[in-house]
């Protein structure tokens, strides 16, 4: 089946991306001034101590050997131990990831549920009240930075009204405000795209022929036009999900959530090289997986894509 061939091609591309990212990470870390051994042992460490640490880290080996070892480590998802805590990087990342992923997915669902129905409604009932509501929402949503919205939401719904907890984790309610502040701005962008895409598809000739076939308005809109209108929306939504994983870093700060964002931020402050390296590769992997999923979904929606 052609879809399978297409999927395996994309999978190959995914692996290539990860290889490329790993390579870039490896060399960038080597080019940045600063010896990890010095960071660990401190500037007043003895030469023997430094040599011992270098031997342990493997940084005394030739560059080629180090590179090969690094790639092997990436393939095994083993990024060594964090310099700060001594725990395996992979474990640290995987411990924190569920929270960030839940937050991002929740924000994603909120933005989709807000944007797509309202966008379609705005397009179908152009210049109606719904359309104006949508336009105001998208203007405001795009203008508000998510961290600011987060603070306002906290003040309003956690301090004044006390409908939601101020900070902490453990329940769904803890995630509502962070997810709303993360999803809101993204929903605004998605809403505009949905409206524009739907309006464009409704003006296509195939819509005229669908009408000429005597199809109901519902079928013309939600079957014929919507399927085509979904193509750019799916692509954009995938990119948005990636953004939300990144944006979670900031929102996690505002809401004091112990997610990936906090972990990486601390790692950078502490010059925790293995954790930074592993973190970058991990985020790249997650991004690539999202893109992969979007490509597959896209090709299901748009049969033309599978040729390329």
């Amino acid at each position, binding site marked *: 089946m052609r879809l399978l061939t297409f999927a395996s091609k994309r999978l190959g591309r995914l692996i290539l991306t990860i290889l490329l990212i790993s390579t870039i990470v490896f060399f960038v870390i080597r080019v940045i001034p600063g010896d990890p051994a010095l960071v660990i042992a401190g500037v007043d460490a003895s030469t023997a101590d430094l040599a011992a640490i270098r031997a342990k880290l493997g940084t005394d080996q030739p560059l080629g050997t180090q590179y090969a070892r690094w790639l092997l480590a990436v393939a095994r998802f083993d990024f060594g131990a964090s310099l700060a805590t001594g725990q395996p990087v992979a474990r640290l990342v995987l411990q924190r990831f569920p929270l960030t992923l839940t937050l991002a997915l929740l924000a994603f669902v909120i933005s989709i549920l807000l944007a797509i129905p309202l966008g379609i409604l705005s397009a179908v009932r152009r210049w109606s009240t719904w359309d104006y509501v949508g336009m105001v929402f998208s203007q405001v949503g795009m203008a508000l930075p998510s961290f600011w919205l987060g603070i306002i939401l906290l003040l309003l719904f956690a301090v004044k009204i006390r409908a939601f907890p101020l900070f902490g984790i453990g329940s769904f309610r803890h995630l509502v405000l962070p997810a709303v502040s993360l999803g809101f701005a993204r929903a605004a962008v998605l809403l505009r795209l949905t409206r524009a895409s739907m309006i464009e598809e409704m003006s296509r000739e195939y819509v*005229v*022929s669908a009408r000429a076939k*005597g*199809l109901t308005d519902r079928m013309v809109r939600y079957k014929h036009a919507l399927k085509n209108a979904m193509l750019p929306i799916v692509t954009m939504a995938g990119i948005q999900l990636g953004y939300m994983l990144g944006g979670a870093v900031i929102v996690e700060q505002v809401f004091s959530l112990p997610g990936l964002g906090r972990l990486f931020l601390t790692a950078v402050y502490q010059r925790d090289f293995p954790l930074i390296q592993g973190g970058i590769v991990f985020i790249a992997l997650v991004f690539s997986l999202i893109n992969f999923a979007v490509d597959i979904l896209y090709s299901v929606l748009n049969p033309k894509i599978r040729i390329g």
Partner: protein
Amino acid sequence: MAKAVDGLLDVRGLDVSFVAPGSARAHALRGVDLSVAAAEIVGLVGESGSGKTVTSTCIMGLLPAPPARIDAGEIEFKGRDLLGLSPEERRRTRGREIAMVFQEPSRYLNPSFRIGEQITEMLGLHLGMRREAALDRAAELAGLVGLRGGRGALRSYPHELSGGMKQRAMIAMAISCTPSLLIADEPTTALDVTLQLQILRLLLRLREVFRMAILFISHDLRLVRFVADRVSVIYAGIVVESAPKEALFLTPLHPYTRLLLMSIPSAQARGTRLRAIPGRVPDAQHVPEGCAFHPRCPLAEEVCRREIPASREHQPGHRAACHLVGKSWPD
């Protein structure tokens, strides 16, 4: 006016304008009379901008209103006035009783659905057919219109088919509910010459098989001569001449028709200059006073500038709207 003996479609005095805020009223149809009998093929001929497509879109009930506005006229189909039907009743006739084939199949087919789905959805909706039965019927239709690959072709997406095959797929869709009237709006314009002929033959065959009437819209008189039984010539939103094919081609009464016929390139006239009609169709915002054709007409007299000529029957079944029918032609 005389009603067609076995009238299927009777358009009388159809008057359509386009009114958009900020621009002048465009008077697209200025009293179009057009009739199609059962199983008859009528050619509707005119230059671009003459009102061919507005006429067909209006018959289909697909004119967007606003900006379109139907000011007067009737569209009688099988004894009912289509303009008096509710939108829902109108929708039910579309595809089922009156179907349409469009000019560019690649734009008018939905790129995201398989051909089979685009055919069977109509069968399900209009005839209440179940999926299996509808698929069988679609395969039958595919064979009938010469869609190569039969059931396999039903599984393909439009972009996987050639231009000719796409048009056949579109025709299969249009005839799927065996409508009594098929409107074909320049169905071969996007195709090359050999394919044109195949599609025209297919249309003729469909008329034989289903006794389906066809309103064949074209700017190309040669195609019309090949398929039509009767021809109506439209100019600036008025049908200026209407006659059985032979009469129209042998003894055209309206100067516009004569000029159109003279401008057909022919093998005999090889080496001579192509004759084009000087000037162009007036746009619908600036239709001239009197006979709309008078600025381009070699015969025009004072009366043509003042009065809109009425359509009169000069021979049985041969109508023309010209003050000067019978006036001798200058060389």
